[in-house]
């Protein structure tokens, strides 16, 4: 999985590309957490538009990041997940916790 970062004001935007599973999640998690610490940002935007596969490891990753962001009073946003990714997000009820920009 490829991860690229950009900034939108107070938010760190993470563009993820490829498949998010247990195998890829640990490295992605480490990269996001390091970048989030280094940048002067408060909020986190996860752009899932190029994520082609996600299982419950992705749910774990999203919830883990949400906990960190909430801890410093920031907000999290999930951007443009594909329909099959939306399905697992809905099932896990992440939608009730995190704002979704379809």
């Amino acid at each position, binding site marked *: 999985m490829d991860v690229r970062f950009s900034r939108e004001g107070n938010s760190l935007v993470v563009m993820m590309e490829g498949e998010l599973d247990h195998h890829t999640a640990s490295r992605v998690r480490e990269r996001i957490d390091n970048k989030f610490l280094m940048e002067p940002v408060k909020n986190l935007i996860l752009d899932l538009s190029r994520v082609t596969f996600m299982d419950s490891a992705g749910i774990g990753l999203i*919830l883990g990041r949400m906990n960190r962001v909430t801890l410093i009073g920031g907000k999290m946003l999930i951007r443009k997940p594909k329909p099959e990714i939306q399905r697992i997000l809905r099932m896990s009820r992440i939608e009730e916790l995190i704002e979704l920009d379809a």
Partner: protein
Amino acid sequence: MQPINKMRTEFLSKSANESFARVVAASFAAQADPSIEVVADIRTAVSEAVTNAIIHGYGEEEGTVVLTCVLYPDFVEITVEDFGKGIEDVEKAKTPLFTTRPDLERSGMGFTVMETFMDSLEIESRVGQGTRIRMTKELKSR
């Protein structure tokens, strides 16, 4: 019921094989010409089952995971088997959000995903001997 086709593959409990396993199972099911949604559901459920075998079945140790797919006229039966630690309390393991590995940021949703995305799910487990997950999915052709 007479199976139309069958495949069996085994691989080491390495996380790199999670994507291998789900691609293999999805490709096998594809011969029945199922909808894109059905293929996506199979891919996700197999990924969960194989990840469970790797993380919970074997943990730090390395072992063998066996993936078997059997095609019937209307459905596919997928079995994921490991010969690792086994699950002490299957009912507890199935509880949404329950995980023995919060350190890995496991969401505890693995079995819930399998149950939701497949039409049936059976878990057979013996402590010290391993776990066998059997799932079926109806294959309505397009």
